[in-house]
Structures are given as C-alpha cells and as structure tokens.
C-alpha cells in the first residue's frame, strides 16, 4: 500500500471541509445571533440564547420590519411578473420570428448589458422626478423590469423549442398571442421558474436604486431597513442579526424550493 495517495486525499478533504465550514459558518452565526443580545454577540457567544423574542419585538416595533418586508415582497413579486412577461416576450419575438433587422436589434440589446448602472442612475433619477414617481414603488418595479440579461437567458433557453408545434397551432387558426400564452408558456415552465428565481433574488436584494428612490421610512424595503440599522450610531447587533436572518430566509427558501424543479427542467432539456 502506498501512503502518498492517503495523505493527498486527507489534505483534499481537509481543504474541502475547512472551505465548507467557512462558507456555512456565517449562516450559523446569523441564526445563533438572532437569539442573543447585542452584548453576547459581541462577546462571541456561539450558543443559542433566549433573546429571540426581545430582538423581534424591537425589530417589528421600533423599526417596523413588518412593513419593510411587505414592501420588499410586493416589489419583488410585481417585478417578477412584469419582467418575466416583458423579457420572455422579447426573447420569443427574437427567437421565433427571426429576421435580419431583429437580429441587429438583438445585438444592440446585448451591447447595452455593458453599461454600468452608475451611468444611468442620474438621468433615471431625473426621469422619475419629472414623472412624479419619486418615493414610489412603481419607479423601482418599472426600472427593474427591463433586464437584457433575462432576455438573453430566455432566448438561449428557447433555442431548442420545436417550432412545428407552433406551426400546427397556427394552421388550426390560433392567434399568435394565444399560441404564446396557452401553448408555448406552459411547456416552458421550468425555464420560467429559473427566470423567476433570478428576478426575485435581484429585486429582493436590490440596494442602490431603492436607496435613491425611496426616501420615506414607510416606503423602504427590508434591505434598506437593515442597512440603516447597521449604520446607526448605536447599532443593536441582536436586532440587526434578526433582520438579516428574516431578509435572507425567503431567498434561501426560494433557492432550495425551486432547485428541484430547476433540475427537472435541465434533465428535460438534456433528453431533447
């Protein structure tokens, strides 16, 4: 028996375990932290405490986390619906009705992906001021609903679609919009699930644009609330941890819940 491979594989698993530990530890720390007082968190206490209710009472009482979570959810859900509709329609248009002019348009769309948000921020701010949308959720939803990345993602996923099905429906006299909604959409559900996850996560975690647009406390999102909690002069670690735990939880739940459906979709496309 050679001892060298054994040492090698020991080092390998040690490396992986240490990495996995550092990756997961902060999550563990968030959960522990939300049950402890600020003082215990600072001291580095790593066991569950009994401050969970106190932290949550403060978070929902003084800071109105309930409203912030509601705002975040409202914005995220509406953004997901609008952006899925708009971007998948565009991808469908580009992929199923190919023409030279539309390919050029598509290249132009892709080119805009390189533009940093910082370059758009100021004119966007002025637009929403002119349209009296400052401090409104609509301004966030509208701006977030156009994502060239998602058009790109959808089009790539539509490439393998059997267009004969659409042709058959057309022969049967179905309208183009009806074909899109009743025949095409249902058969692409897993792709839409993937797009929905992406749009949801992006919206839920958005910071810079909401920070600029939403100026009153009753309009702000969970992300903004947590950020302002942490930058206050006397940050309460226990309350911040509870806030982070609450704001992170939906994303983790969505990630694990949709993972299965997503894998199914991928297996499905491999079979084709």
């Amino acid at each position: 028996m050679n001892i060298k491979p054994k040492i090698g594989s020991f080092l390998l698993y040690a490396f992986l375990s240490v990495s996995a530990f550092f990756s997961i530890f902060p999550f563990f720390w968030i959960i522990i932290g939300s049950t402890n007082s600020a003082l215990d968190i600072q001291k580095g206490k790593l066991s569950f405490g009994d401050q969970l209710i106190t932290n949550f009472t403060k978070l929902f009482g003084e800071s109105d986390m309930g409203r912030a979570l509601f705002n975040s959810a409202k914005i995220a859900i509406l953004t997901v619906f609008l952006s899925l509709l708009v971007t998948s329609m565009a991808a469908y248009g580009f992929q199923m009705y190919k023409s030279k002019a539309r390919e050029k348009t598509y290249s132009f769309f892709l080119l805009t992906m390189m533009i940093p948000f910082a370059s758009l921020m100021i004119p966007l701010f002025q637009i929403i001021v002119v349209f009296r949308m400052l401090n409104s959720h609509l301004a966030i939803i509208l701006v977030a609903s156009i994502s060239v990345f998602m058009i790109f993602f959808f089009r790539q996923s539509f490439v393998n679609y059997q267009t004969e099905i659409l042709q058959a429906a057309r022969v049967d006299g179905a309208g183009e919009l009806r074909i899109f909604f009743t025949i095409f959409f249902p058969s692409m559900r897993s792709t839409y699930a993937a797009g929905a996850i992406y749009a949801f996560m992006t919206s839920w975690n958005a910071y810079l644009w909401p920070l600029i647009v939403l100026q009153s406390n009753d309009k702000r999102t969970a992300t903004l609330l947590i950020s302002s909690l942490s930058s206050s002069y006397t940050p309460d670690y226990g309350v911040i941890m509870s806030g982070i735990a609450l704001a992170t939880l939906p994303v983790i739940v969505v990630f694990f819940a949709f993972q299965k459906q997503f894998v199914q979709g991928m297996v499905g496309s491999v079979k084709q």
Partner: protein
Amino acid sequence: MAHEKQLNRTGWFFILPSSILLLFFIVYPIFYSFYLSFTSTRGIVSQFVGFKNYVRMFGDPMFFLALKNTFTLLLIQVPIMLVLSITFAAVLNNKKVRFRGFFRTAIFLPAVTSLIAYSILFKMLFSYDGLINNTLLSLSIIDSPLQWMTTPKLATFVLILAMIWRWTGYNMIFYLSAMQNISEDLYEAASIDGASKVRTFFTITIPLLKPIILFTTVMSTIGTLQLFDEPMNLSQGGTTSSMVGPDNVFLTLSVYIYNICFKYTPNFGYAATVSYAILLIIALLTFVQFTLSRDKEEVMRRRIEKETKKMVKEGLR
C-alpha cells in the same frame, strides 16, 4: 406574402414592450448622461460648460483615489477568487470525491445572501470587539485586538476577504458546468498516456475552459468597477458618514458618484462625467481581455454563447 408580412409585424409586436422600456430606462439615460457630462448643475440651474468637467476630473485627487481603490480590488480580489473557483470546480467535478453534492451546495450558498447582509455580517465579525478578534485572542494568535475596520490596509483586506467569500461559489458553478461538457474520453486517454492529474488539469481542462475564464473575468471586472453595496455597508456609518472606510479606502468609483449626487452639493454634470469614465474603462478592459484571449474568434464566440446558456441555467440553480 401577406402572411409573412403579418408574422413580421407580430415579431416586432413581441419585442415592443421591452424596446419601450429599454428606450426609456437605458438608451435615453445613457445619451442624456453624455450630454450632462458637458454641463454643470447647481440645484435646478444647469449650464453648458464644455470639457470643464473632464478637465476637473483629471485634476481631482478623490477621483484618482477612487480609481486606485477600485483597481486594487480588481487586481487582487478577482484573480484570487477566480483561481479558487476553478480549483473548487476541478476538485468537485471529480466523481471519486465523496459528498460532492454537499460541498458544492455549501460553497455555493454564500451566493444567495444579499450584498447588504454579508457586508454587514463581515463588519460585525471584524469589529474591534467582534468574534474574529475574540477568537484570535483566545487562540493567542494576537496579543491585543486588531483595528480591522479602522486601519486602511486591514479594512481593504476584510473587503477582499468578504468578496471572496460571497463570489467564489458563484463563479465555481460557471466552471463546473463547463467542465461537465468536457468529454471523459480526453481524461482517460491522458491517464493512459501516464499524465498526472495536475498535468491534465493544465493541459486539458484549462485550455478548454478558456472561453468561460474569459467570460467570468469580464463579468467580475464589470462587477468590480460598479462596486457599491459592499463598501457602503462595510464602512462605519454607511451613507451618512463623512468618510467611506478608514482614509476613504472604500471609496470606489460608484460610491464616489453617489456621493457627488446625493451627499455633497449635488452636481449631476460632474457625476455624469465620472460615470462615463467607468463606462470607458469597462469598454476598454473588456476589449483588452477579448483581444488577449483571441483565438479563432468566431469559434470562441459560438462557444461562449453555448457555454453561457448552460452556465446561466447552472448559475441560477
């Protein structure tokens, strides 16, 4: 003929909603921003000033500080992160490694946290009386607590560490999906020829991953040049404090633009100028990265498109 015409119109119809939004929220702003960069705004009064803003930018020490800070991250954080990602991907692509699924999920998990959440988390971990100092003290690695967040070099270190934590798993997924497309036969042939694992990694895996390496490099470059959430939330006092990190080490280009617009006396014209500097740097770096890795360009472009499609799926998973 009439039928085809109608189909053509339907095609445009599907693209219309996106086009309108794109026109309003991306195309118009980017041109307007260009116009703004030649104006000076004080409150609602705005006047055309020609190249004055550009001249001002080249003599602005804060702009150069932001540029330096951004490039420090670009040159240190991005390479370390990408090397780590590709290492993890190579290891976790090996079918003989046990608990692969667990390790993959574990290393990917940081990528689901919000940028705000992890920044604040790292700020708390590395605070003067925080967990890291306490742990290092109790292990006798240090004698007295380190001023992580108030010493410029250490604060930069924390920012780099935090970004590596958040983004390594995310990039790993891209490499993993690309590696899964490499035929097993290649590796088998190599091992029959007596090539070691490390050698096959450098002679087979890396060359075949070139398009994906290029893609992740470009994406990370764009991401770093736009960095805002992390420095803002790692710094004490966030958007309200006068400095962004000790000695302004967290002042990135995007943070600087935000400050010009919303913290100091707003000067949208000058902010637009700085934002065009970012746009130009991104365009330039992307061009350089593409040129450096150009081989049979057309082939590569197709491969990137193909890989990206899979990657996008994997990345979202």
